[in-house]
């Protein structure tokens, strides 16, 4: 072996060109790395949000730039029965749909967490409603709820013979409200189920074994092990789910357009309705802005409910 060569070889000093040196300069590097993200946020998030909030304080209509009117739009909303209806239905829609989504989603997640045959196929199937574009599934539901061609009506009347008339799903207020909630639940379950399943899978099986030896029944294992350990992820998923549901637009707009007689307007659909087809941009923006307190409340809920619990703190070496 030739060891002399190894001793005399010296790593050549690399001369950096001016461009390379510029890219090695930290302030420059930080700036250009941040630029795309900050730019995107400014253009697509901050600007529309700012514009929306600004519009809410003007009497702009389509085709006429308005003037600053202060809180007038909001004062008007407080006396607007439609707005109050939308607030009621938004809260009702979110509340009922969230309860149903979490009940069914948790149940599905627990089922899928067992050893089932064809587990991976089942999981893929469960994700389907979520993968399908919302408008497509909305159109599917529109057909399902159609007064004449509804498949549910067909099953109930012609196949099973339980009814003699078609079901009136979206023709009158309360059935329409419940029908939309059903569609939202159907669409929202996969997100909840898959997220909770991921949470379930982080629970060590030996905890269940220890609990089994400690004398727990199946229900007690859920009550004392599964549920408390799932709580942190449950809180995150619930916050997201509440925000998505409260701001829902596509399902309602595609199926009922807020009807019949404006009974199924959510704040989002009402804002759109006022702002674009009716042209009252200022008022529409005010309705949209009126959603902010609700969303802030949901976020605060997550902030406090998600604050790391005491048992999660400390050394994390396992």
């Amino acid at each position: 072996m030739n060891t002399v060569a190894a001793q005399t070889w010296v790593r050549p000093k690399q001369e950096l060109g001016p461009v390379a040196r510029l890219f090695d300069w930290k302030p420059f590097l930080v700036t250009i790395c941040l630029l795309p993200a900050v730019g995107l946020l400014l253009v697509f998030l901050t600007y529309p949000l700012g514009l929306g909030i600004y519009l809410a304080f003007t009497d702009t209509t389509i085709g006429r730039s308005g003037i600053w009117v202060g809180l007038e739009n909001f004062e008007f909303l407080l006396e607007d029965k439609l707005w109050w209806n939308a607030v009621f239905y938004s809260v009702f829609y979110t509340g009922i749909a969230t309860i149903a989504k979490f009940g069914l989603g948790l149940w599905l997640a627990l089922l899928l967490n067992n050893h089932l045959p064809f587990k991976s196929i089942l999981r893929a199937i469960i994700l389907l409603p979520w993968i399908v574009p919302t408008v497509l599934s909305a159109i599917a539901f529109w057909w399902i709820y159609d007064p004449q061609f509804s498949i549910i009506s067909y099953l109930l009347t012609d196949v099973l013979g339980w009814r003699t008339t078609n079901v009136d799903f979206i023709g009158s207020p309360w059935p329409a409200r419940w029908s939309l909630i059903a569609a939202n639940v159907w669409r929202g379950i996969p997100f909840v189920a898959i997220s909770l399943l991921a949470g379930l899978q982080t629970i060590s099986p030996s905890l269940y074994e220890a609990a089994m030896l400690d004398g727990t029944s199946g229900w007690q294992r859920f009550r004392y092990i599964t549920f408390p350990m799932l709580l942190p992820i449950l809180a995150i998923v619930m916050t997201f789910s509440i925000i998505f549901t409260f701001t829902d637009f596509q399902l309602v707009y595609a199926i009922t357009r807020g009807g019949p007689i404006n009974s199924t307007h959510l704040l989002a659909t009402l804002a759109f309705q006022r702002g674009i087809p009716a042209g009252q941009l200022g008022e529409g923006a005010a309705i949209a802005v009126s959603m902010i307190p609700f969303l802030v409340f949901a976020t605060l809920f997550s902030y406090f409910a998600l604050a790391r619990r005491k048992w999660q703190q400390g050394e994390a070496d396992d």
Partner: protein
Amino acid sequence: MAAVSIRNVRKSFGSTPVLHGVSVEITDGEFVVLVGPSGCGKSTLLRMLAGLENISGGEIAIGERVVNDVPPKDRDIAMVFQNYALYPHMTVFRNMAFSLKLAGAPADVMKGEVSGASRILGLDQLLERFPRQLSGGQRQRVAMGRAIVRHPQVFLFDEPLSNLDAKLRVAMRSEIKDLHQRLNVTTVYVTHDQIEAMTMADKIVVMHQGRIEQIGAPLELYDRPANLFVAGFIGSPAMNMVPGRIEGGAFVDAGGTRWPLPKDAAASEGAEVVYGIRPEHLVLDPAGMPAVVHVVEPTGSETQVMLKIGGATVMGAFRERISAKRGDRLPVSPDIGLVHLFDRASGRRL
């Protein structure tokens, strides 16, 4: 407290057999250690005792009762897991009291039991902590406390010390042993560490590839290993094993070196055997076999020397301090009374 009897127990996962008929009788209050190399089925057997795996064949009885179909919670056993399996969202107190709470014990009983166990284990100051806020050794003790408060018939331990550092392991070893002597509950303890097995057990069960190689008291296994596997597994440094044959009343290895045999050696002339001698049973002897020093490893209390004797490489462990260098001559001879002979084909002791 109860006796445990494992009768011809088999286990397969799917079509893969893991235990091929294992039988162990454990008397009341005994400390039994299952030991064997990784993957030999120790944990599987323990989990079958606990009821966490079903039994593919044979029978397990705890006390008088056959428990094959008894669910874990009705077997009256407590288990300490390798990863401790403490409930992360419960304080030390609630971890320990959990089983009592489920059994509907009144609050003062719960308090009494937990404080009794925590005093034994030195956990009094830690009762309000969460598992994450404890060190490895403390978690290990909580896991033991959780088992103690139940007053089970049988304690099961699955490698409880393998996550601890060497020093703590030695300390916990004597703590567990001490605990056993105090409570006198039948205990089955799984480990792959033969030192742990030797120091703690009343009775050792040596397992290998789903079979039991030998059952016996620690010194019994050391003094009279039933076969080559046990001979190689028990004892550290491991026993020297030299293959060869019996010729003219002596053992002759492959290189032609003659090794002395005990008078009453049970090997017939011409038999193919393995000559076993523990490193600590080689003695320095100027009139002994010509050995050449290969590597010297002083440990302080003794000196381990790797020697070449003829074609064979053997390890010697000597009380004397030896300052020999590589290539020096260091004649040694085996302590004749402590030579083991094994049949080469079957590996059985002769």
